[in-house]
Each structure stands twice: as C-alpha cells, then as structure tokens.
C-alpha cells in the first residue's frame, strides 16, 4: 500500500506523518516535528532562492 517515493514525509498528507512521529517520539513528537519542519522549510527556501546544483554531478557512491 505504501509506495516507495522520494518525497520527504513532510509533503504527504499530515495525518500519517503525525502518527509516525507520535510512535517514534511519544510525548516529544510535536517538538521534534517542529524542529524538522523548520529545517526542511529552510532547505526548500534556500534551494528555491539559490538554485544549487549537485556536486559532483554523478554520485561518488552509487
């Protein structure tokens, strides 16, 4: 049922991710989730703004 995708969990409908976070982190889930979300938003924003390209172009380790 759960297909392998490259999309980070953040981009999925929130409910499944919330349940996973709760199971992994228990009472601390909201705090961890907030930190992760902030980090991902930073990453997305920087990538939009700066348009970085992969280096090296071909992965060193396949």
């Amino acid at each position: 049922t759960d297909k392998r995708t490259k999309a980070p969990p953040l981009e999925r409908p929130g409910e499944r991710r919330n349940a996973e976070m709760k199971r992994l982190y228990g009472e601390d889930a909201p705090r961890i989730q907030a930190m992760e979300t902030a980090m991902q938003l930073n990453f997305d924003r920087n990538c939009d703004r700066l348009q970085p390209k992969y280096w090296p172009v071909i992965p060193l380790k396949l």
Partner: protein
Amino acid sequence: STRFIALCPTSIPASAGEGVGLEEEQRCRSELRERFLRTLIKMTNKPVNFDMYEGVQVQAKFGASDIDVLNFQVSELQTPIGVQKEALLRCQDMISFSFDV
C-alpha cells in the same frame, strides 16, 4: 512510510505490556534526534570540511539539510577544480564532515 519502517526494526513489539519499554525508547530517541538536529543547526553558515568517498575532500559553508539527511545545501564549495558558488552535496557521498564551534 519507508522512513518509519527503517526506523522501527522490530524494536517496538506488537504485544501489550511493553508500555514502559516503549516510552523509554521514545524518550531516548527524542533526545538523540534533538541533539542531532541541534548539531545541524549549529553548523549553519559555518565552514565545514567534508571527507567523501574516492578520497575526495572539499570545504563549503553549510546552509541547510533536508529532514531525511539526504542532501546538504552549501555555498562557496571549494572543489579540487575550483569554486562552485551554490551546491547540493549528497550525504550518501560523504564519510564524515567536521567544523569548529
């Protein structure tokens, strides 16, 4: 998700009566994860040395990581053949990285 499955390798038993063990495990996991996230936050805008596979060593200013720690967004990447102003490094290519605090 695949990420979740990877994280829970048989470590959370389905049986009841393990509630205390589960809570302890969650508490430990939270502490470890929070410390790791704080490490990445601390690294923001700092020059970082990367040891990569194939003996490749580069330095760059760290910008941000995605939550799955698959990619790092960096600036002023000093490669053996010159500087790339903006770059993405694959964490799979790295063996280790280091920075001063």
